[in-house]
């Protein structure tokens, strides 16, 4: 079975890889968007926190014997708490200043974290095994699908859906949306906005760490795994605009698929295609696909 002269297993294989990358783009850009909406800070540390999630999973396994399933819960909590500490100690001091200082601060924090991990663990990756329950592959007829990869796409999708539900359909989500629009007014109603900001940052960071745990068995766990990803995620955020939760999720998955297809049809451009899309979107719709001008 061929499509445009491309054998089906290759096409679907790359499509699946694209969906997986898209899942990470979606999870990370979602976290960035939630944090930016509430704190007005672009969290440059996001990539490092994604990497911390993967390392937390590795450390939980190798130091404490806690496996994948435990790490999926514990790693986001641990990394989320470190995020809360960072927010209280440093990021909170910058809310009254120009937003760009937040970007510079979180960039510096990212450098520190990445450098510390590189000192401790070196630059070559550490292996993390796929959990026994998710090993093997399904024969779908037209291709073999490794179970773990299907799992990642599915879990990422549901994590995005859950985040959307919390923000759009719950009471705390409505506070969050209100505080994004007008923090002073929400505070006047007796809601502790600074604490909400802290928790929002913690939650966004936890989401990044969650993505990191999901990524650990696919990519090797190494200190640079986040920094290269985060720049692509920035492009995703520019393309989607940070105004809408569903928008960033859709853009994330969509761009992953576009990247996967480019790998099949024109591999030379696969590393640059997302930036090209960004340039086109900026020319045609400067506010982003889902952004408000």
């Amino acid at each position, binding site marked *: 079975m061929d499509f445009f002269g491309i054998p089906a297993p290759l096409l679907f294989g790359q499509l699946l890889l694209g969906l997986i990358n898209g899942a990470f783009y979606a999870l990370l850009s979602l976290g960035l968007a939630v944090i*930016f909406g509430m704190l007005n800070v672009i969290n440059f540390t996001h990539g490092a926190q994604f990497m911390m999630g993967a390392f937390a999973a590795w450390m939980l396994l190798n130091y404490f014997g806690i496996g994948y399933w435990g790490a999926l819960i514990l790693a986001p909590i641990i990394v989320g708490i470190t995020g809360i500490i960072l927010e209280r100690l440093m990021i909170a001091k910058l809310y009254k200043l120009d937003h760009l200082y937040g970007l510079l601060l979180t960039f510096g924090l990212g450098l*520190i974290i990445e450098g510390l991990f*590189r000192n401790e663990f070196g630059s070559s990756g550490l292996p993390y095994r796929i959990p026994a329950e998710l090993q093997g592959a399904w024969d779908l007829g037209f291709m073999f699908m490794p179970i773990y990869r299907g799992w990642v796409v599915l879990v990422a999708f549901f994590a995005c859906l859950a985040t959307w539900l919390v923000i759009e359909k719950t009471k705390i989500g409505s506070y969050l949306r209100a505080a994004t629009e007008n923090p002073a007014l929400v505070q006047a109603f007796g809601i502790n906005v600074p604490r909400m900001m802290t928790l929002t940052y913690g939650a966004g960071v936890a989401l990044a760490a969650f993505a990191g745990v999901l990524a650990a068995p696919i990519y090797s766990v190494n200190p640079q795994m986040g920094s290269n990803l985060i*720049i692509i995620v920035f492009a995703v955020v520019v393309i989607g605009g940070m105004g809408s939760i569903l928008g960033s999720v859709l853009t994330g998955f969509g761009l992953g698929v576009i990247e996967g297809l480019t790998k099949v049809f024109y591999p030379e451009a696969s590393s640059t295609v997302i930036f090209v899309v960004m340039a086109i979107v900026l020319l045609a719709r400067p506010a982003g696909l889902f952004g408000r001008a």
Partner: protein
Amino acid sequence: MAAPAAAGAFEGIDAEREVIWGFTRPQLITFGLMLAFILVAPFFLYPVFLMKVLCFALFACAFNLLIGYVGLLSFGHAAYFGMGGYLAGHAAKVWGATPEVSILIGGLVAGILGWLIGMLAIRRQGIYFAMITLAMAQMVYFFCVQAPFTNGEDGIQAIPRGNFLGSVSMAADMSMYWLVAGVFIAAFLFIHRVINSPFGQVMKAIRENEPRAISLGYRVDDYKLMAFIISAAISGVAGGTKSIVFGIATLTDVFWSMSGEVVLMSLVGGLGTLFGPVAGAAIIITMQNYLAEFGAWVTVIQGVIFVLCVLAFRRGVIGEIGRLLKVRL
């Protein structure tokens, strides 16, 4: 990003009056000190080290033109620095161009690249501007990884220094040093001239209040783009000079960490000050020199400096000195 209230704070003080060429008296004195140091230093310090400092100082001055005077934070200046380096190296090695022509080619190509990326980036403001410039620079990086003329991971090696104007050999470090010093001083004065021109006044107006500048009838986007192109071209000159000095142009100079380093240099020295980027570059390069053997600790220390500067030291070294002496430097 508004430079921390430096402008305007010292209005009416005598030290504010222009003496000559747009320099105030304290600025003129500082410029004289810098000039004297550039002339004397190579007899005491290692010229290759000094040339590195001058290249990065020029790079930081070019970056500071955008952040300090137009208020645009570009997080992708490595693209122009690195591309200038590659093109100058290619011109010198493959086309056999003389060093000054190679450096100019580097600047020209970086300027064109800045025009292309600037057109896209100025369509958004603030944080988005930073993210777009970073993403486009990463695209340039991936282009350089694949393009044949950059030799991928190996980079362009054994770039000849050649003969200045086709006759004076630049092989000796001291002769090369005077060329680098000349390039630096000329470009520094050019930037200073731009800042103090009517064009520069509009740039500052955009930084202070963009809607008002628009309402006064200035085509803000044209000014931003022009400033971006100038900044990119000078970054390219800096990168080109560096690759001629060291005889090598590699992927390091186009990578995002280089963009971060130039931000750090300007921040440490003082954003929006005339001499801050020069001081910042000298500090950071000296630090890297001493810490080179500690590997990843350099990254950690740079991160710590970033954090400290943003939290407690936003004026930078030169900005703080200026504040103590109540002058604008």
